[in-house]
């Protein structure tokens, strides 16, 4: 899952990996675990940065404890990219927090298969989650008609652009493939990189691009059919999408050149967008949380637009759905009620969630039917517009699929690894898609594919 991969965390990863089990063990020892009793609820959060963490303590933890007398919420902040490994290690030892955060439905399903999560239907009735949360979100958390997980930290892919550059050149964000290609040629002709891009900090981030091209070229209906096994991923509609992306990379549209695409780091490519060396950037909605930082120096302005359809028949305003995390209750939690109460507190109240979303962008995106008026006036208009657009579009079934949410783990890793080989010319787009189909078919037979929710259709 790559909600958090827009940061340079793999530098930290290496160090932490070297510390190994001892590090994890000491963390676990320090955090208590499922055995905590007497109304204590343990929660590992993936929030980063002293500001957001202090905000959580002050504006969420304390008010929750006040509203739920007798429940002691123990929060531990874990590095997002390490979270699943730490949770996995803890659960191996029948430990771990009472509320378990996974990186997405495919991961949650694995834990459910191992009987590690408690059923939440009773609490869903008690708190009215069916009525409050977006329908697809509840559907996504059900396995064999039982609710186990609540999707959280919603994301989508967006086209960010340097508005100052666009205005200077009399350009508008593209609305279709012709406009997108014309824009890219125009920018490149003027010495501006059309799309700031690079996977130097996190090679796994390459999966953003097959995600975007499959959704906006192949379309969500074709993806739904492939993800449910009706058509293979080797279908030309998927192969052509990959070839199109490869073609754009070879032209130097993404990151400047194929080799730079492999080595550009996030800070550098974001700086390129901010200072006008690049015109646009295709990235997830998480970038809204710090995009402003990269425009301060140049004084340019930014905005976002929906990614355009790249083939006729694909919806004009389509948001591929990404789930940054899911929340579940540890089957061995002593205070299951307290844990469910905290999930309800964190996810289901629109007013509270809107306030948090305004205070710490992209960290608390709850699966609720928001409109722009739900958000406080302090929220950046562009962020409020994006959140309500995503909420409304997905509520109407106008959504696509992100690789890190709807593909099972091995297929997702296949995309991350083998897509690189398409760009280097080691394999063709057709070979890539055939290999994916083989891996995906195997995982589908093993029951590893998460629940695939159906889009509204054409």
């Amino acid at each position, binding site marked *: 899952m790559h909600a958090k991969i827009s940061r340079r965390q793999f530098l930290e990863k290496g160090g932490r990996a070297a510390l190994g089990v001892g590090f994890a063990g000491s963390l676990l020892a320090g955090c208590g675990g499922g055995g905590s009793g007497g109304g204590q609820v343990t929660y590992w959060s993936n929030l980063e940065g002293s500001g957001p963490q202090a905000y959580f303590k002050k504006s969420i933890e304390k008010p929750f404890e006040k509203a739920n007398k007798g429940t002691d919420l123990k929060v531990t902040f874990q590095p997002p990219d390490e979270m699943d490994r730490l949770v996995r290690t803890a*659960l191996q030892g029948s430990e771990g927090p009472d509320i378990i955060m996974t990186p997405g439905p495919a991961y949650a399903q694995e834990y459910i298969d191992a009987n590690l999560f408690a059923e939440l239907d009773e609490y869903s009735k008690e708190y009215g989650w069916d009525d409050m949360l977006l329908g697809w979100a509840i559907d996504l958390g059900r396995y064999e008609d039982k609710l186990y997980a609540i999707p959280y930290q919603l994301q989508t892919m967006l086209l960010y652009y340097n508005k100052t550059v666009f205005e200077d050149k009399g350009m508008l964000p593209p609305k279709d493939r012709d406009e997108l290609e014309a824009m890219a040629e125009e920018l490149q002709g003027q010495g501006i990189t059309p799309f700031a891009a690079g996977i130097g900090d996190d*090679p796994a981030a390459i999966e953003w691009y097959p995600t975007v091209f499959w959704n906006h070229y192949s379309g969500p209906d074709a993806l739904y059919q492939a993800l449910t096994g009706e058509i293979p991923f080797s279908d030309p509609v998927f192969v052509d999408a990959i070839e199109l992306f490869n073609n754009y990379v070879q032209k130097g549209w993404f990151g400047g050149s194929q080799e730079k695409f492999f*080595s550009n780091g996030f800070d550098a490519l974001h700086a390129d967008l901010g200072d006008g060396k690049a015109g646009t950037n295709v990235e997830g909605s998480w970038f809204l949380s710090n995009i402003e930082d990269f425009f301060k120096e140049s004084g340019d302005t930014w905005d976002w637009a929906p990614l355009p359809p790249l083939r006729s028949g694909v919806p004009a305003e389509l948001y591929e759905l990404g789930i940054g995390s899911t929340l579940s209750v540890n089957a061995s939690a002593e205070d299951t009620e307290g844990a469910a109460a905290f999930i309800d507190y964190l996810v289901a109240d629109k007013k509270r969630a809107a306030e948090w979303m305004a205070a710490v962008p992209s960290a608390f995106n709850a699966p609720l039917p928001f409109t722009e008026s739900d958000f406080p006036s302090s929220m950046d208009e562009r962020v409020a517009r994006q959140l309500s657009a995503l909420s409304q579009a997905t509520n109407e079934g106008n959504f696509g699929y992100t690789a890190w949410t709807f593909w099972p*783990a091995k297929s997702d890793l296949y995309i991350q690894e083998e897509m690189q080989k398409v760009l280097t010319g080691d394999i063709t787009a057709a070979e890539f898609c055939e290999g994916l189909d083989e891996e995906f078919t195997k995982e589908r037979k093993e029951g590893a594919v998460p629940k695939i929710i159906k889009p509204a259709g054409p």
Partner: protein
Amino acid sequence: MEVDRTTAEAPHGAAKRAPGRRLRRKRLITAWLFMLPLIVVNVLVILGPSVATVYFSFTDWSGIGSADWVGLQNYTEIVADADFWLALMHNLIWTAIFLTVPVGMGLLGAFLLSQITRFQMVFRVLYFIPYVIASVVNAALWQNILDPTRGIGSVLATVGIPYLDGVSFFGSERLALPAVAFVENWHWWGFVVLLFLTALQSVDKELYEAAKMDGANRWQQFINVTIPGIRATLVFVVLITIIGSLLVFDYIYIITQGGPAGASEVVGTLMYKEAFARFEAGYAAAMGLGLSFMSGLVILVFLYLRRRGWEI
């Protein structure tokens, strides 16, 4: 009268031996008591996980839940896994690089340092600094220096040296592995210099005098006096280089994560991905044991040569 020496001496001997045996037993117990904490720790953190790893390598364990016995399946799959062999080939290339470049630089650096007395300590410290800097810091430093658009290449281009401008060291399939090796070498070679320098200082100066009197030039002195004099250190460096190259992980994982397109993948990074991204913990365990087996072979060869009388 003939004295039965055995019976006559027995009490005397026994009397002499008894305290010795008690003393030895006492010493033995004391020694084991001192060893006990270490043994307990080793059993917990080395032997236990090692046995578990051997067991899991014969299962399809995903990292959580139950593990089903699959026999030798993981091992047969590794034999047929092209990614594993490619990664192992990269390990071998890495080994070749580190057996030559830092060892050669270390020998040269140590020899040059041994020739000076003033400022020797300053150079020693300077050479050693990269070794004590954390790998994540070293890696970040070189990622910035070698950045294709904002690094040294673009700076040199502004002063009329355009050859490195736009070169993507870590993004090129051809350059990624040697570029990461270059970064790790920068971290490593200073340590090798100090090892060799220490060894050089223990070589008897009279041997050089004798060689000179026999008409040996500098190169002949190096080959015939220096190398035999530091052979034990040289072999030690070769040994840790081979084992370290088989187990290499951190710099590659931090800088390229094995990319682009597997061009810098080594068995260590592949194993990590199998365990924590593909959730094939059983398969990763088998891979890890394969690596351990290879490292063990290197150590066995080393021990065998020692037994054959090699002074190493």
